[in-house]
C-alpha cells in the first residue's frame, strides 16, 4: 500500500527535476516557475476553489479513462466523448426553461451522458465487432467531434444574434448554481466525488467489474471463463464515454453555460496522466485530478509572472506518464504488480522449482 503511494510521488519528484532542466534551457528560473504554479493554484481562497473547479472535468475524464484502461481498452478519446456530451447538453439546454430546476438539471446531464455514451459506444462496437484498434478509432473520433462542435456553434446552434460563434445560453433552470458565491463550487463537483466512489465499487465490488479487470489483465484467459468479451468491450467503452460526456455536460451546465470552440483544453489526454498517477484506482482519481487541476490553474499565473506558456503543463503531463511507466516495469522493481501490458509470455513469470516445460 505504501509503495503504491510512494511510486507516484517519486515519479512526480523526478518529473520536477526534469522540468527544471527544461526551464533552465528556456532561461527561466525553476524555483520561480514552481512558486508561481503553487501560488496560482493555492495562493488564495479563490485560487483554491478555482483549482477544484478546474479539477472537476479531470475527475470525470479521469474516471472514464481509468475504467477503460482497467479493461485494457485504450480510450484516448475522452476529449471527443466529453465534447459530444457537451454538444448534447448545449443543444437541449436552451429549451429547458419551463422545467422545474431539478428536472432540467437531470435532463441536461442525461443528455451529456447519452452523447458521450454514443461516442464511446461507437469505438466500442468497432472494436468488438470489427476488430478495429480503439486507439485509432477514438483518436479519429476526437477530431470529428472537434469539427462537429465547430459546425454547431457556427451553424445550427449558433446564438440568435449571430455575432459570436457560440450557442444560445442554456436556460437558468438547467444551470448548476454556485454555492458560496462568488466561488464556483457547484453540485457537479459533488457529483464527481460520488461517481468516483461508485466507480470504485463497480470495479472492485461487483461481478461485472471483476470481469472487466480480468479482461484487462489477461484477455485470453478471460475467454476461457465465459467472460463475454465483445459485449463487455462495448459496454465499458460506452460507460467510459458516458462518464466523459457527463463531464462535458457538467462543464456546460455549471461553468460555461453555452458552447464554443475549443471547449476542452485537452482534458481527455490529461486524464491519461491523471489515471496513471491514480494507478487506475477510481478513489485515487480525486487527488490526482486535483494535482493536475492545480497545475492547470497555476499555469496561468506562471504565464503572467514568468513568461512560460501554459503548454508547459503538457510537458509535465507527458513526463509524469513516462516516468510512472518507466518506474513500474518489472525490469526495475522486480514486482509483477505492474498495471499495464504485463508481457504475457510465460518467460515473464519468475519460474520456480517445478518449472513446467510446456
Amino acid at each position, binding site marked *: 500500500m505504501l509503495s503504491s503511494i510512494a511510486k507516484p510521488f517519486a515519479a512526480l519528484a523526478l518529473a520536477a527535476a526534469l522540468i527544471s532542466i527544461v526551464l533552465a534551457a528556456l532561461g527561466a528560473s525553476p524555483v520561480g516557475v514552481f512558486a508561481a504554479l503553487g501560488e496560482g493554484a493555492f495562493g488564495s481562497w479563490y485560487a483554491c476553489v478555482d483549482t477544484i473547479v478546474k479539477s472537476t472535468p479531470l475527475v470525470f475524464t479521469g474516471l472514464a479513462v481509468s475504467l477503460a484502461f482497467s479493461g485494457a481498452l485504450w480510450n484516448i478519446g475522452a476529449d471527443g466523448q466529453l465534447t459530444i456530451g457537451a454538444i448534447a447538453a448545449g443543444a437541449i439546454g436552451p429549451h429547458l426553461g419551463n422545467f422545474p430546476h431539478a428536472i432540467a438539471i437531470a435532463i441536461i446531464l442525461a443528455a451529456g451522458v447519452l452523447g458521450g455514451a454514443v461516442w464511446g459506444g461507437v469505438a466500442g462496437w468497432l472494436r468488438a465487432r470489427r476488430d478495429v484498434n480503439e486507439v485509432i478509432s477514438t483518436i479519429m473520433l476526437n477530431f470529428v467531434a472537434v469539427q462537429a462542435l465547430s459546425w454547431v456553434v457556427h451553424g445550427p446552434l449558433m446564438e440568435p444574434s449571430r455575432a459570436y460563434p457560440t450557442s444560445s445560453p442554456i436556460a437558468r433552470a438547467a444551470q448548476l448554481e454556485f454555492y458560496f458565491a462568488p466561488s464556483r463550487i457547484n453540485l457537479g463537483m459533488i457529483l464527481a466525488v460520488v461517481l468516483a466512489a461508485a466507480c470504485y465499487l463497480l470495479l472492485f465490488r461487483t461481478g461485472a467489474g471483476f470481469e472487466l479487470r480480468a479482461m484487462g489483465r489477461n484477455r485470453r*484467459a478471460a475467454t*476461457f471463463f465465459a467472460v463475454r468479451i465483445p459485449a463487455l468491450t462495448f459496454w465499458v467503452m460506452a460507460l467510459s464515454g458516458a462518464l466523459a460526456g457527463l463531464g462535458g455536460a457538467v462543464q456546460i451546465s455549471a461553468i460555461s453555460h453555452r458552447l464554443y470552440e475549443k471547449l476542452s483544453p485537452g482534458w481527455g489526454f490529461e486524464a491519461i496522466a491523471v489515471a496513471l498517477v491514480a494507478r487506475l484506482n477510481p478513489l485515487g482519481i480525486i487527488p490526482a485530478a486535483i494535482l493536475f487541476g492545480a497545475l492547470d490553474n497555476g499555469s496561468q499565473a506562471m504565464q503572467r509572472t514568468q513568461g512560460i506558456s501554459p503548454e508547459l503543463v503538457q510537458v509535465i503531463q507527458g513526463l509524469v506518464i513516462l516516468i510512472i511507466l518507466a518506474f513500474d516495469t518489472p525490469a526495475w522493481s522486480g514486482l509483477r504488480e505492474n498495471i499495464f501490458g504485463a508481457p504475457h509470455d510465460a518467460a515473464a513469470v*519468475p*519460474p*520456480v522449482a517445478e518449472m*513446467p516445460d*510446456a
Partner: protein
Amino acid sequence: MLRANAITKRFGRTLALDAVDFEALPGEIHALVGENGAGKTTLMNVMAGSLAADHGEAILDGRPLQPGSPRAALAAGIAAVHQSPMLFERMTWEENLALGGFDTGAGALDLDAIAARARSLAAKLGFEMPPAGATVENRSVAERVRLEVLRALSFNPRVLILDEPTSVLAPSELTAFLDLLRSLRGEGRIVVLITHKLAEAIAVADRITVLRRGRVVARTTPARTSEEKLAGLMIGEIVTQPVASATPSHSGDPVLQIENLTLDDHTGRRILDRLSFRAAAGEIVGIAGVDGNGQTELVEVLAGARRPSSGKITVLDGSSGGAMAVIPQNRDLDGLILDMRLWENLILARPLREQVTSHGWLNTSHAIDLCRELIDRFRIRAPGPETIAGALSGGNRQRLEVARAIASRPRVIVAHNICRGLDLAATAEVHRTILDFATGGGAAILISSDLDELLAICGRLLIISRGKIRETNPGERDPERLGLLMAGARD
C-alpha cells in the same frame, strides 16, 4: 568436448540449477533425464547461450562460451532444438530456414538456393519437406520439429541439443528419429538428448546424467541401470505403483453429449471435423492424440472461448453446480491470471463467482473464506488467499486449478495435458482427485498426448487425429497399435 562447470542459476527465490557439472564427448549421445522442472531446459538454455548463468561457465573444446549470447553459441557450434519449435508461423518454411545456416550470407538473399540445400540435407536424413512456399502455421507439429532440426543442422553444429523432441512424435516416427540421432553421433557430433522418457534414453544413449531439483544426482550408462532405477533417482524415492487403475463402474446416465462439432478457422481450414462422442456419469474418458490434431481448439470450444462453426454441445445438467469445468493446457497463461490474487483466480470460475455474488454485488470476504477453505482441503502451499497467483510454484498453481474445477461442482471436467509438468507424486495426486470425482458421479474427459497416463486411468479411450475422433475397441490396450491410430493410420 562440451563442458558445463558448476552452473548455478536462480530465478527469483528459486534455485533452478545448483552447481551443476555436465560433460559430453564427441561421437556420443548423452541423455539428460529428469522430471519436468528438474532444470534440464534451464541447463540447455545456458549451454545454448539464451540464458546467462549466475555462476559457472560453459566450455566447448577448451574455450569458454560467452554467456547470454545465442549468437556466440551458434558461432561456436552449439545448436538447440527447443521443446516447442521456435519457428516463425506466418513465414514460409524457406524463409524460416533462411534464418539458419543455409544462407551463405553473401550477395542477395536467394531463397531458391536455400531451399535446394535444405532439400538435399532433408533427403539424406529421410525427411519429407513441405510443398514450396508453404507457411509454417499449417504444418503439423512433427513437421515443425523436423524443420527445426534441419535448421539446427544447417549450422553444421559441433553440438546438437534436443529438448524433448519425441514428445510430439507418433510412436511410429520415433524409430526413425532415434536412427537420425545415431547417424549424427556417427558423424562425430555431440548429441545431448533431454528427455523424461526413460525407455528412449536407455535405448539410444551412451551415457545418462540424471538431474533432480537442479542438482546432478547420478551419472551412469544404460548398461548399469534400468528404467526403474532411473525413475527412482529422478524422484528420489521408491517408485510406487500408479494410482489404482481400477476404472470405476459408471451408472450409464449420459452426462455430456457432443454432436457433429465442427470448427473451421478463418482461412477455411477444417480443424475439428464432425466430432461426436459422449460421456456418462462416473466415466473417465481419455482422448489420446499427438499434439496439434485439434485438441487445443476442442478445449477452447468446450470452454466457450471459441465458437464452433457448427455442432452441438449438451451437458445434461442435473446437479446444482455449473455444467462443465475446463482445465486448459497452458495452465499459467489460459487458466490463471497470474497478476491477480488466489481468491480472485478462484472466482474466475463462473459457478463460484455466482456463489459469492448476489444481485451483482461481489462478497469479497465470502470469496476469501471460500479460498481459504479450498487451500486447506486441497493442501495448496500458499501463504493465504490474498497471495498473488504468480508467486505460487507450478505444482501449487496446478492444485489451485484442480481445486477450482472441483469446487465449482461441475458435471463434467475437461482437462488438457493435466499432468504435463508435474512430478510423479503430483501426478498421482491429480489422478486420485479425478478418480474421486468420477466415483462421485461426474464425468471426466482427459485429453492428453501421454498414452501411458491415459491407459492407466481411463475407462474408455478415444483417439483424435486430424480433427476427427474415433472410438477404440474396449479391450484395445496395445500402445503400439494405439500409437498407429494416433498417427492417423486407418484400421
